[in-house]
């Protein structure tokens, strides 16, 4: 079973990512639906076992406040150099008040975990081949940060 990092632990993952061009009957599993798939079919979908995934080039505004219909939303990092997902994460959490699990999928790397955590991500399906146990320590590369983000909305000078 695939492994991911969630809340600082390495755990088994049971979510199935549905491709963007998927057609036919959804598997009997916990599925992560592509954002556009959901938008196209939302009136006819049974969302009992569904999460959502958003690609880096997609406009998160299209989901907006619907975000909270899902227990889990994943954001895809097609390449770890594509930093749009950091903004998407913050928008989901801070602007649309998404309270569920926010996950990074695709090709995010260990050295981005601290930044991802600050942007509201709590689970991480890292690039294939990552030593997940070793990677966990990068969640805590820094104890202090200067600026506001989801995990600490108050800039450093506004605390104390």
């Amino acid at each position, binding site marked *: 079973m695939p492994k991911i990092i969630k809340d600082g632990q390495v755990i088994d993952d049971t979510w199935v990512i549905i491709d963007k061009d998927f057609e036919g009957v959804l598997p009997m599993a916990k599925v992560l639906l592509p954002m556009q798939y959901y938008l196209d079919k939302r009136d006819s979908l049974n969302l009992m076992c569904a999460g959502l995934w958003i690609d880096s080039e997609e406009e998160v505004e299209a989901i907006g406040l619907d975000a909270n219909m899902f227990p889990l939303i994943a954001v895809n990092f097609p390449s*770890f*150099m*594509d*930093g*749009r997902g*950091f*903004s998407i994460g*913050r928008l989901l959490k*801070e*602007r649309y008040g998404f309270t569920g699990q926010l996950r990074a999928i695709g090709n995010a*790397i260990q*050295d*981005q975990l*601290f*930044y*991802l955590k*600050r*942007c509201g991500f709590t689970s991480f399906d890292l690039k294939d081949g990552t*030593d997940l146990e070793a990677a966990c320590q*990068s969640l805590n*590369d*820094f*104890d*202090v*940060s*200067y*600026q*506001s*983000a989801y995990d600490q*909305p*108050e*800039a*450093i*000078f*506004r605390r104390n």
Partner: protein
Amino acid sequence: MYIYNENDQKIIEQRVAQFRGQTDRYLAGQLAEEEFLPLRLQNGLYVQRLAPMLRIAVPYGLLNTKQVRKLAHIAHTYDKGYCHITTRQNIQFNWPQLEEVPDILAELAEVQMHAVQTSGNCIRNTTTDQFAGVAQDELEDPRPWCEMIRQWSTFHPEFAFLPRKFKIAVSGTEGDRAAIQVHDIGIQIVKNDKNEIGFKILVGGGLGRTPVIGSVIREFLPQEDLLSYLDAILRVYNRHGNRTNKYKARIKILVRAWTPEVFAEEVESEWEYTKKIPCDLTREEIDRVKGFFTQPDYEAIDDNDAEQQLKILADDNIAFGKWLQRNIHAHKIPGYAAVTLSLKPTGVAPGDITDVQLEAVADLADKYSLGEIRTTHSQNLVLADVKKSDLFELWQKAKSGGFATPNIGTLTDMICCPGGDFCSLANAKSIPVAEALQRKFDDMDYVYDLGDLSLNISGCMNACGHHHVGNIGILGVDKKGDEFYQVQLGGNSDTDTTLGNVLGPSFGRDDMPEVVENILNVYVENRVNGESFTEAYRRIGIAPFKERVYSNKTGSKPTDPKESTDA
């Protein structure tokens, strides 16, 4: 200057540990080359032609003597005894060992220095006027704002993987000495009609392959709103900047594609949200940071007396008089002056300084200038707080240190990137061109007669040598493996920042001294009433220059410059 508190120090030390871990994983084969690359770049580490290059941050160009002595120590312990001042006020070492970089960073952390975000697709070092805080024409000292921006941008979790690099400059004066119009964001401190201090915000300026002058997107931003507004600009850029073509990825391309008006609207609507987050500056924080940049206890000095003394000394000593004319900048306090130490003597790569010289500069700063040194974007050093009565002694010592060449602001004070001698991006060498020109124009009386004149050299279209904004700009181009040089005229980086125009087909390296000589002759023959190069050029246009240079052509094979730059 700003002094680290416990948090600042912890952040920098944890960065050293993080980078040590990354380097260890890379050397152990656990971190792929393509993943280590952006991580090391965000720590200023390039792999160059001959060896790695480590670029160290000098936030807004300010150093204390302890830091300068540390740089000297690093130069002789880990490098070949010298370093290089860059056009963004940073410092580069050309010969460190990759394995030793974590140790170098640990040494730097001891003196509150680092290499954070000196390269890579992230927010880079914020730069400013080298005379900040002492300039007569300043509305307010820009350095506290630079420091607040430094802290905001350091490890910003949302903006560490931008479409491309991102540079911010702040100016506290009307006359621009920080090149804010050619930065991704230019911030000018202004006063509104209610007499409140705030910021004018420009975006989308830049040099490089597509040079653009920045556009004003906000005439007045209240001080407290600075960080939420920057968050809004960066978020719009992070989400919408081009990520498929790195040559179209800078913010200037997005601003141009959308138009500055539409870009401004997008930022304003994003700002509606970001300003609700408790990220903005408080009065207390602004005051805290400003508290590190308060005016030192200057002595009360009679300026007339001081000037009279200088005049007597200068009359006796012509060389000192020339140095006073060129290397001294007015100071806001009577009896004081800002001194530029020239790193442009003939025969040394522009901006290079040795470990011995660094030690000497530190001694001078301790003795004469309140223990602080500044780096400049024109690759020199500044001692900003020198008593006029100390100038003669300082000059004598600077002369023996090799940095009293009286050429600041003249032809031979060239801005020049490291070029093909070091940089793997370069199309052509730039240092030998600078040296050939310095040797050709070694008659200082001729150089003084030309007056203020900027000659900027870049080894490739990335434009680290700011060739677009030189009165004379030289760009190295590659033509089927051969090095050629394209010439641009009429650029300038003052308040009315202007990009130069291409003169015509490019030249071989050996032709360059003669080409520049022809250009200068046209200027000298045509100037009226002491016109500067820029003024004369604007009046007579490019045609007479073109005619002279190409009719006197020396048999080099001209190439089509457009074809060359795209090669």
